[in-house]
């Protein structure tokens, strides 16, 4: 079996790293210097909303399942909004025509100046 296989390479590298010892002495105050740099490092800024949205659009949205869900939701929203608005418009037109029918027949319903 060849050691060029990925699993074998990882094992070999792991053994090599375990055998490796650094004998060079650390500089004076090394530990304190590390902690001082950690303390002084600026805290990572919270991502802005725009960044989050952009990240979501670029990474999450193109996933097939999410893309299909997104399209299905917008399709449903469009159908629902169209149906609701059409119902309102139809009711308005029919209500107006009904009133118009009565205005034609009722002399006292005719608007007078």
């Amino acid at each position, binding site marked *: 079996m060849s050691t060029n296989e990925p699993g074998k390479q990882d094992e070999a590298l792991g053994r090599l790293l375990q055998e490796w010892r650094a004998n060079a002495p650390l500089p004076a105050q090394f530990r304190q210097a590390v902690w001082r740099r950690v303390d002084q490092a600026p805290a990572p800024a919270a*991502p802005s909303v725009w960044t989050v949205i*952009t990240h979501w659009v*670029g990474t999450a949205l193109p996933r097939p399942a999410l893309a299909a869900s997104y399209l299905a939701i917008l399709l449903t929203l469009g159908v629902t909004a169209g149906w609701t608005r059409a119902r309102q418009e139809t009711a308005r037109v029919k209500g107006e*025509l009904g009133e118009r*029918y009565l205005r034609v027949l009722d002399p006292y319903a005719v608007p007078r100046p």
Partner: protein
Amino acid sequence: MRFPAHSSMKKGVLLLLLGLAVAAAAYGCVYFVCTSSARRLERSSKPELAWLKEEFNLSDSEFQRISELHAAYLPQCAEMCRQVEAQNQRVRALLAATNQMTAEIQSAIAESARLRGLCQRNMLDHFYQVSRTMPPAQGRRYLEWVQERTFLPSQGMMSEP
């Protein structure tokens, strides 16, 4: 947060726009289809009668008969409108000429009431004829509908002139 690759970002933006286009198209199509009956009514030569036909599920023969009744009633209605308007002008002139009750005002009030009664009688007679032309259930529904809007207080003929 790692920034997405350019191609992935482009795909995401396209999907975003496609979603909005799908929503807009769905809205437009559904609205257009669902308002077709209202548009058809508005486009007809007599929209109020076309509405009556649809609202009370009239057959073509019933609709034909009701259209004839309607056409026959309109001249009576126009004549009543003319008389009502003339009487209103007379009452206005009498009221403007004095600050006390006179015999002429009393007579004009009585005439206004007589005209109102005559209008009511003619209109109700027409409504009954129309309702008898409809199938019984629709006729009852029609009578309830017109009476509620014309004979009940504060509606049409029953409202203050």
